[in-house]
C-alpha cells in the first residue's frame, strides 16, 4: 500500500506566472541567438561608414591605381591599391596551389590508408597545427624560411615565396579536416562496389572516392582561400611590405591585410579612412568567397 506524501500539486489550472516566466526566458535566449546577426550588422555599419565615403570620393581609380602614397588629406595623397589586390590574390592562389594538393593527399591518407596508430598521432597533430597562433607562424617564417630563401635565391628573402610557403602550411588544417570528413562521408557501398570489381585502392580513391567527396573538398579549398586572403600577421612579417606588383617569386609584395595592419596605428585623417576603404574591399572579397563555398558545397556532384 503506497502512502502518498503531501507533495505540492493538484492545481491543474495553468498559472500566469509559469507562462510569463517561460516567455521571459525564451526572449532572453532569443536575444542571445540574434547576437551573431547583430554583430555582423555592427561591423558592417562601422567599417563601411568610414570606408564607403572614401571609396566614393576616390572612385574606381582606387582599385585600378598602382601608386600608393597616403597622406593626411585626400588631395595630398595618391590612392591606388591595385598592387595590394594583386598581392593578395597572388599570395592566396600560390598558397592554395601548394597547400591544397598536400592537404587533400593527407586527408585521403587519413581517411583511407593510415593505420589506427598513425591516425592517433596525426589527427591531434592537425588540431595542434590549427591552434598555432598566426604570429608564431610568422615568427617561424621570418627566422627560418626567409633566411633560407635569401640563401638560395638572394635578395632580402621577404617575398612572395615566403608567403606562399607559410600560408600553405597555415591552411593545411582547414583543408585536411574538412576533406577528411568529406571522404569518410562517402557511402561505403561505393568503395566496396569498386573494390569488389577488382579495382586497386588507388584506383578506387582516384575514380570513386575523391569525385564523390569533391564538393566537400572544393568547399574546403575555398574556405582555405578565405583564410589565406584574410591572414594578416604571418604575411605582414614576411611579405616585404612593398606596394608593388612583384616581378618574381622572390620579389617583395604587399597584401590588403598587411597594409592595413602596417599603417593603421599611425594613420590619421584621410589616410585612416583609406585603410577602412581597403577593409571594405577585403570584406567584399571574403563575402564573395564564402558565398561561393556555400554554393559549391550544397551542389550534389554526380560522377
Amino acid at each position, binding site marked *: 500500500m503506497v502512502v502518498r506524501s503531501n507533495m505540492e500539486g493538484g492545481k491543474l489550472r495553468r498559472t500566469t506566472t509559469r507562462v510569463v516566466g517561460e516567455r521571459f526566458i525564451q526572449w532572453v535566449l532569443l536575444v542571445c541567438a540574434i547576437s551573431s546577426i547583430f554583430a555582423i550588422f555592427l561591423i558592417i555599419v562601422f567599417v563601411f561608414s568610414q570606408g564607403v565615403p572614401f571609396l566614393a570620393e576616390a572612385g574606381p581609380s582606387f582599385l585600378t591605381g598602382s601608386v600608393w602614397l597616403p597622406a593626411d588629406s585626400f588631395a595630398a595623397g595618391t590612392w591606388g591599391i591595385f598592387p595590394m589586390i594583386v598581392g593578395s590574390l597572388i599570395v592566396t592562389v600560390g598558397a592554395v596551389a601548394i597547400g591544397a594538393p598536400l592537404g587533400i593527399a593527407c586527408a585521403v591518407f587519413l581517411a583511407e590508408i593510415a593505420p589506427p596508430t598513425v591516425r592517433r598521432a596525426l589527427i591531434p597533430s592537425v588540431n595542434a597545427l590549427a591552434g598555432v597562433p598566426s604570429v608564431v607562424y610568422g615568427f617561424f617564417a621570418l627566422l627560418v624560411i626567409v633566411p633560407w630563401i635569401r640563401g638560395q635565391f638572394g635578395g632580402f628573402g621577404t617575398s612572395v615565396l615566403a608567403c606562399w610557403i607559410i600560408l600553405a602550411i597555415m591552411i593545411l588544417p582547414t583543408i585536411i579536416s574538412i576533406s577528411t570528413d568529406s571522404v569518410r562521408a562517402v557511402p561505403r557501398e561505393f568503395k566496396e562496389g569498386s573494390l569488389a570489381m577488382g579495382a586497386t585502392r588507388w584506383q578506387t580513391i582516384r575514380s570513386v572516392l575523391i569525385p564523390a567527396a569533391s564538393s566537400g573538398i572544393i568547399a574546403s579549398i575555398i574556405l582555405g582561400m578565405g583564410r589565406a586572403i584574410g591572414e594578416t600577421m604571418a604575411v605582414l612579417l614576411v611579405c616585404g611590405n612593398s606596394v608593388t606588383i612583384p616581378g618574381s617569386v622572390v620579389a617583395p609584395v604587399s597584401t590588403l591585410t598587411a597594409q592595413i595592419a602596417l599603417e593603421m596605428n599611425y594613420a590619421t585623417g584621410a589616410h585612416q579612412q583609406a*585603410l577602412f576603404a581597403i577593409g571594405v574591399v577585403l570584406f567584399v572579397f571574403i563575402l564573395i568567397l564564402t558565398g561561393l563555398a556555400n554554393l559549391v558545397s550544397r551542389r550534389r556532384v554526380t560522377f
Partner: protein
Amino acid sequence: MAAKRRETAAIGLLWGAGIATLVILIVILAYILVNGLPLINWHFLTTNPGIRGEAGTGIYSTIVATIAVTGVALLVAAPLSVGGAIYLNEYTKETLLRKIIRQAAEVLAGIPSIIIGLFGFLFFVIYLRAYTGGWSVLSGGLALAFMVLPISLRISEESLKAVPAELREGSLGLGATKWQSITTVILPTALPGIITGLILGAGRAIGETAAILLTAGGALGVIHSLQDPCCPMTLYIYNILTEYNDTRDAYGTAAVLIIAILAITFVTDYLMNRYTKKLKGL
C-alpha cells in the same frame, strides 16, 4: 603490372603527404621549443618586460594581459553563444530564422581578424571610449569576443543536438518545465561538448594578434584595471620582431604560447573522449 606499380607509387605518395604534415608540425614546434624552452624559468615568467625591449627580462605583464583579454572575451561570448545555441536547438525547429543565424555565425567566423580590428578600433576604442578607456583590455577583449562567439555557438549547438530526444521526453513526461529540463538534463549532458567549444574559442583568443594590434594599445606595464592599455603575448612577439634587435625573448614568449596551445589541444581531446564515454554509461 603498370597498375600495380602506379598503385604502390600512389600509396607511397599518400603516406608521404601524411608524414610531411607530421614533419611540418614537428619542425615548427621543435624550432620554437628548442630555442625557447631554455629561456623559460620562474624569473622569465614573473618579471616584467624591459621598457626598451632589452632581452633577458620577462613577460609577466604580457601573460597577465593575455589572460585578461581572453577572460573578457569568454565572459561576453560564453553566455551569448551558449544561450543562443540553447534557443536555436530547444526553442525553434528548422525555420528560416535558424538558418539565417547559422549563416550569420559562419560569415562572422570568416571575417578576417584585421577587419574585426578595424571595427574594434572604431567602435570600442573611439566610439565607446568613455566606457572602455580607449585602447585597453576591455576594447581588446570585446573585439576578441566577436571571434570566439561563432566557434562556441557552432560547437554548443552540435553538442545540444547530440542529446537524444528520449531524454527530453522523459524529463517533460515527469512534469518538468522546459527550462527545468534544459538546466537539469539537457545542459549537463551536453556540457563537455560545450566546454570544449569554449576552450577552443579561448585558444583562438589567446593566439589572436591583428585585432589586438588595433585595440589593445601595446603598453607593457601590468594592468591595474580593465581600462588600461595592455600588450598580450602575441602582440609582444610582433613588437619584438619589428622593433627590437634582440629576438631572444620572442622565442621564450612563443614557447609559452605553444605550450598553452598544446595544453588546450590535449584537454579538449580528453574532454571529448570522456563525453562520448559518459553518454554510453561507462
